[in-house]
C-alpha cells in the first residue's frame, strides 16, 4: 500500500471508525434537519431521534457480527 493510500486509510479509520453507517447517518440527520428548518419546521427534536436510531442499529449490527 502506498503512502497516500495509508494516509487516507488512517483518516478514514480515525473519523469514520468501526461503523460507517454512524457517520453516514449523522450526515443524513443533519441534512434532514437543515431541510426541515428551511421549510419552516422547528426540527430540534430530529437529531436526538437520529441518535437513538443510529445507536440502536449500530449496536444491533455489532451484536450480530
Amino acid at each position, binding site marked *: 500500500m502506498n503512502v497516500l493510500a495509508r494516509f487516507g486509510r488512517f483518516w478514514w479509520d*480515525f*473519523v*469514520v*471508525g*468501526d*461503523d460507517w453507517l*454512524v*457517520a453516514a447517518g*449523522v*450526515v443524513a*440527520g*443533519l*441534512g434532514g*434537519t*437543515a431541510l426541515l*428548518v*428551511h421549510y419552516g419546521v*422547528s*426540527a*430540534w427534536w*430530529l*437529531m*436526538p431521534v437520529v*441518535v*437513538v436510531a*443510529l*445507536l*440502536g442499529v*449500530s*449496536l444491533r449490527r*455489532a*451484536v450480530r457480527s
Partner: protein
Amino acid sequence: MSLPILFLAAFTASAVEMVEALTIVLAVGVTRGWRSPLVGTAAALVALAAIVGALGPALTLVPIGTLRLVVGALLLVFGLQWLRKAILRASGYKALHDEDEIFAREREAARSAGHEEKAGLDWFAFTLSFKGVFLEGLEVAFIVVSFGSTKGGVPIAAAAAGVALVLVAITGVVVRGPLSRVPENALKFAVGTMLTTFGVFWGAEGAGVSWPGNEAALLGVLAFVAAVSLVLVRVLRRGRGVAVGAPA
C-alpha cells in the same frame, strides 16, 4: 452553562486517552530505559500542541453556523463511536480494556525488539512512545479544537487536557505501573455521552435549529442521551443473560 460541561468532557476524554498512552510509555520505559521514551513522549506532546495551536485560531475565520455544523457532525461521530464501544463493553459483548494485560504485552514486545540507535536515541523506544502518545492524543486534540465553536472553548478545553495530562503523569510516577484501577469504561461512557450531547446541540444549531430554552437544552439532551444509553446497556445485558447490576 456549556463551559463547565465542556471542561469536564475535555478533561475526562484526555484522562482516558492518557491512561492508555501511559501504559505504553511505562512498558517501554521499564524495559529499555527512560530517556528515549520520555523524549518520544515530549515530541508527541509538542506535535499535539502544534495541531491545537495551528487549528484553534484558524477556526475563528470560519462562519459560526458552518463551524457548528461541521464540529457538531465530527463530535457526533466521535461521541457515538465512544458510546457504542462503552455500551458493548458494559453489556459484555466486547472485552473490557485491560491495562495490565496491555502492559504485559507491550513489555514483551519491547523486550524482544532489536536495538537500533538513531540521533543518540533507542529508536524503537522513541517511536513506540511517540506513536502511542500521539495517536491516543490525536482524538483529544480534535475534541479540544472542536470546542472552538463556543467562545473561549479552546483555552478551557486545552487547560482541561493539560490538567488531565499532569494528573495522569503524576499518578503514573507514584503508582509506577499501569493505572488498571481507573474505571475506564465508565469514563468512556461519560465522554461518549458528553460528546454526543455537544454534537447534537451544535450540529442542530449549525443546521439552523433554535433550541427551546437555548443553552439550558444542553442539560436536557445530556439526560436524554445518558438515559437512552443506559437503557441500551440494560437491553443488551438482558439479551446475553448478564445480571443487570453487574459492574460495567
